[in-house]
């Protein structure tokens, strides 16, 4: 593997945390791909063929409702991966997974990944621990979607996305954002304008820049702090 490629894979924090020998085993089969925003990763009920480790992009897990709507239940960036549980056996995706922010991803064929995991108890254990954290995040998000107002959820979402891509500039259309939060686009436009008036964000076509992080944090619901990827594992006694 070239140094550049290796460095790319190590942008993902799960991959970066692996012992060198485990990473070397995975490294043979890991590829790097660039995906645009809105790329389909999994559809509900479809077999999981590849495991995705975001380097710079962001993946959204969405529950699809009968009327064709979709609401986000978890966000996965460089701190995590999607499809890991495929290593425990043949699995179908429960949610729709789509790239919410385009970027670079490390991917590996699920069958190869499963084979490596079978021979590596430490990696198997990591999947268990990561899944616990993702499960906690999804529960918090479910509660948030029902219990909190649109503006707090929008702030929570912007902060989560910024943290998980390590960038204070979130490249997104309000249309996409509205879909993620299950709101009308007009609602998102008005709320974003109000947050801009407060000086928390700068909103332009195609992206939102965070100008005042403290302000935005004060306007977000507690779900932002609860689901921070750097503190959630410790909260539930999981070492990641």
């Amino acid at each position, binding site marked *: 593997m070239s140094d550049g490629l290796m460095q790319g894979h190590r942008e993902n924090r799960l991959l970066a945390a692996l012992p060198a020998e485990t990473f070397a085993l995975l490294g043979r089969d890991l590829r790097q791909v660039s995906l645009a925003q809105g790329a389909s990763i999994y559809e509900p009920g479809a077999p999981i063929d590849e495991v995705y480790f975001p380097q710079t992009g962001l993946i959204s897990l969405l529950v699809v409702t009968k009327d064709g709507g979709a609401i986000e239940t978890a966000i996965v960036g460089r701190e995590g991966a999607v499809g890991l549980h495929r290593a425990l056996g043949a699995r179908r995706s429960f949610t729709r997974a789509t790239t919410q922010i385009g970027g670079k991803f490390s991917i590996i064929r699920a069958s190869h990944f499963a084979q490596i995991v079978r021979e590596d108890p430490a990696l198997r254990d990591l999947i268990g621990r990561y899944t616990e954290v993702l499960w906690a995040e999804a529960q918090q998000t479910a509660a948030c979607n029902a219990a909190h107002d*649109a503006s707090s959820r929008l702030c929570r979402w912007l902060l989560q996305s910024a943290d998980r891509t390590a960038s204070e500039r979130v490249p997104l259309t309000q249309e996409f954002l509205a879909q993620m939060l299950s709101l009308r686009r007009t609602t998102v436009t*008005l709320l974003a304008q109000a947050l801009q008036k407060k000086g928390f964000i700068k909103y332009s076509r195609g992206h939102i820049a965070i100008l005042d992080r403290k302000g935005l944090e004060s306007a977000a619901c507690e779900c932002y702090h609860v689901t921070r990827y750097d503190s959630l594992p410790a909260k539930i006694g999981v070492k990641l």
Partner: protein
Amino acid sequence: MPLYYFHMRDTDTIADVDGTELPHHDAAREHANGVARELMYKSDGLLDESWRHWTMIVHDADGAEVFALPFQDVENGDDDKS
């Protein structure tokens, strides 16, 4: 389809910079109600002003006012997004 803009006003103004294409005024009225319910869900107000001070002012593409919807007239029930 005609374009409608859903601005908000109290002492301050929040502009709907994007607008939304809708078939007719009735659809615009329904959209305005839907947006208002989404905004008010579990929320006391916006920019430190209670909802009863806010009015949604709906404009057409030429900037002419189509109708105004005071937030206090909106039933803030469950968000039945339809």
